């Protein structure tokens, strides 16, 4: 290795990944840990990193308790229904009761929030969403994190967590490498807040070739939130709960503001409303509790996101596609037309590029919609992530082991995509989870729980060697062939990614199989995944950039294996429209109204699966708002 080793010692709170959750953690830990050393390790540049890098046009989680709009318990009911019952209500409630304070701070820091001229309240897009001019959302929160942290290391790809040599199952920091200099970075820390991203690009995308990067979720979200934790032996939950999005075709432009604020609606290829006709049959599959086709007009319970996907997918499969978004009415209003375009420019510029390129003017033509490839993440309408402790005043016994948002590894905390069972956090909720995790991490240190941590030189050397192995492998074997990328001794990161995507698509329920899988397919998938894992030991990286891609792939592979294991374990179709178990099509509340929890043994790679109780802590009936 021709690179330097740089050791950063005596860190109290190490934050891996500085998207919304990481910036929240950095900001808050400075308040509770005035004397503490707070360090951020970020793969890109904190000013534009994470899923919010290009901006947002809405904050999707805001109670508005200040304006008498909603209370946290209302949000718990909503998220619970949307995820067909499967949520961690203690974590959801905890996030919801604090989230408004984060949003009010964003406004104070300069984020332009739109206001309703009549009521003075924030401009609502829907019951939980408010509209913002959020092009600079990320740089604004990054500023807060930079002012709070002792040091920000940009361009460090964190590959592994360090474990304490003195005490089993306790974290001791992290290691990674600088994608510019190639230097090996060692962070010795008392606690780690894992605020890395969920996984895009683990299923074959609809786009091909040059367009492969046009995925709904950022292509740099490489599943590190899961890869890092799984490898450290942390328990994971709800990894089967991957999400499929209905979005504008090809560009994956957002539809939230269109549906909710612009009041657009969908129709099939022959101009008919199609959604409701799929619901009576679907209601038999999922039960009245989740889809009350007769009482819906009275209960006004929102229809779960996945079930709306189900209708979409089936209508297209029945040959009545494409599904269109009816924009031609709303766009006659110049104000709404402007909002429609700003909506893209603020968060998915690629959709504006596409409409300009294909001459689609939504004022005169209803654009096509599509369902996306699946994604594994924990902060949108899905709740993959680590099994973490709840807050002490709410969490039931099974959900509580002392420190809010601490994973089953001591001193290791999760927030944002890394915290499982907490869907519908989005940007503001992820930031809030970061704050909660940071406060708990400081308390963990103050309680003396991090005393006596030891990191042996042996562990540091072993990881260092492991990190740079793909470059060594390339050097050794490249000269066996004349030129090109086909080598009998290795695959490169792109080839590995293609293989992973094909495998996941065909065996775990991706686009080409219409989101369908079964026991047999999943088992074949797992067998092939094991071979891919073995081949990743022989991956070759030509330069430091490819080394980055190699480690991203490793994190994606670990995330994917967890998805296969969880999907195999849950023998029911809990979320029709996200995926289907062809051999267990019915939702089975009797056996599976439970959360799924897994642990991968770090030494053997073996999986252990278990069921955990799903507690409903908030009553069903809606109360009047504050």
């Amino acid at each position, binding site marked *: 290795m021709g690179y330097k080793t740089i050791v950063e010692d005596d860190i109290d709170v190490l934050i891996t990944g500085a998207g919304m959750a990481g910036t929240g953690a950095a900001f808050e830990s400075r308040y509770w840990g005035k004397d503490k050393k707070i360090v951020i390790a970020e793969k890109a540049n904190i000013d534009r990193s994470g899923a919010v890098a290009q901006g947002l046009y809405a904050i999707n989680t805001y109670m508005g308790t200040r304006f008498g709009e909603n209370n946290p318990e209302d949000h718990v009911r909503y998220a619970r229904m949307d995820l067909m019952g499967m949520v961690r209500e203690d974590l959801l409630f905890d996030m919801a009761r604090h989230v408004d304070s984060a949003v009010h701070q964003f406004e104070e820091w300069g984020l332009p929030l739109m206001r309703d001229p009549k009521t003075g309240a924030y401009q609502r897009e829907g019951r939980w969403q408010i509209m913002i001019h959020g092009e600079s959302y990320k740089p*604004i929160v990054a500023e807060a994190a930079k002012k709070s942290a002792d040091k920000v290391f940009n361009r460090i790809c964190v590959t592994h967590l360090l474990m304490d040599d003195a005490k089993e199952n306790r974290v001791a920091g992290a290691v990674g490498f600088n994608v510019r200099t190639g230097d090996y970075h060692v962070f010795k820390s008392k606690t780690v807040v894992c605020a890395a991203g969920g996984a895009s690009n683990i299923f074959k995308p609809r786009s091909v070739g040059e367009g492969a*990067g046009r995925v709904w979720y950022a292509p740099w979200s490489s599943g590190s939130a899961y890869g890092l934790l799984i490898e450290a032996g942390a328990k994971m939950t709800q990894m089967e709960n991957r999400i499929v999005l209905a979005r504008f075709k090809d560009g994956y432009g957002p539809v939230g503001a269109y549906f909710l604020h612009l009041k657009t609606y969908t129709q099939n290829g022959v101009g008919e409303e199609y959604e409701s006709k799929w619901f009576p049959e679907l209601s038999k599959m999922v039960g009245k509790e989740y889809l009350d086709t007769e009482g819906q007009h009275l209960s006004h319970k929102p229809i779960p996101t996945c079930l709306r996907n189900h209708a979409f997918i089936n209508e297209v499969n029945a040959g009545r596609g494409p599904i269109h978004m009816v924009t031609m009415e709303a766009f006659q209003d110049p104000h709404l037309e402007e909002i429609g375009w700003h909506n893209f420019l603020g968060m998915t510029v690629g959709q504006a590029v596409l409409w300009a390129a294909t001459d689609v003017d939504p004022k005169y033509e209803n654009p096509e919609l599509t369902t996306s490839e699946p994604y594994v993440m924990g902060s949108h309408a899905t709740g993959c992530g680590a099994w973490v402790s709840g807050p002490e005043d709410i969490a039931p016994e099974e959900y509580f082991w002392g420190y809010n948002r601490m994973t089953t590894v001591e001193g290791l905390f999760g927030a944002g995509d890394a915290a499982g069972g907490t869907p519908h956090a989005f940007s503001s909720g992820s930031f809030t989870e970061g704050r909660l995790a940071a406060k708990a991490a400081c308390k963990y240190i103050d309680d003396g729980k991090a005393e006596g941590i030891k990191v042996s030189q042996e562990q540091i050397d072993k990881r260092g060697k492991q990190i740079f192995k793909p470059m060594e492998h390339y050097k050794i074997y490249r000269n066996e062939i004349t030129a090109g990328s086909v080598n009998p001794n290795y695959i490169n990161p792109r080839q590995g990614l293609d293989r992973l995507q094909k495998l996941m698509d065909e065996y775990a329920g991706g686009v080409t199989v219409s989101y369908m899988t079964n026991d047999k397919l999943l088992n074949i998938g797992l067998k092939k995944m094991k071979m891919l894992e073995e081949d990743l030991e022989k991956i070759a990286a030509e330069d430091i*950039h490819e080394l980055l891609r190699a480690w991203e792939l490793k994190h994606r592979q670990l995330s994917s294996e967890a998805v296969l294991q969880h999907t195999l374990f849950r023998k029911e179709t809990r979320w029709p429209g996200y995926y289907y178990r062809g051999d267990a099509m019915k939702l089975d509340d009797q056996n599976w109204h439970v959360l799924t929890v897994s642990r991968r043994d770090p030494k053997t790679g073996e999986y252990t699966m278990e069921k955990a109780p799903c507690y409903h802590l908030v009553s069903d009936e809606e109360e009047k708002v504050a």
Partner: protein
Amino acid sequence: MPTFVYMTRCDGCGHCVDICPSDIMHIDTTTRRAYNIEPNMCWECYSCVKACPHNAIDVRGYADFAPLGHSVRVIRDEEKGVIAWRIKFRNGKKDMNLLAPITTKPWGTAIPKLSEESAPSKDMTDSQLLFNEPKYIRLDEGGLHTLESNGLKMKEGVYY
């Protein structure tokens, strides 16, 4: 291609390399100008386009579905706190100018330095409150919102 760089406008300053979230804007060592090394990992997030001081970076829609001949250009002005967009359609029928604010305050001035705040009390540390709470939840003097404060009770956990 997503992004590409005009040869005559780029001076190799590296702002795009510094900001790209996907690590795909690099400097070519021969021409000493920036280029996109991995278009199929580009999200068209426009971070590099906005960061380029010479407007040398542009975007062409993805080759697998976007025809040629369109343009979406941007100028982001931190001093004025605005962002300006121009969208030109392929057929020339639409040419839109759009303007939006990006901040309401001069950069960074309104963000508190938490190291200068007084240390939290033991009560605060033991409570469920975060910095600036409970005030910042409702921006009033009310306490932390709980079910109890709203006259409700947490249900005993129901196990299914």
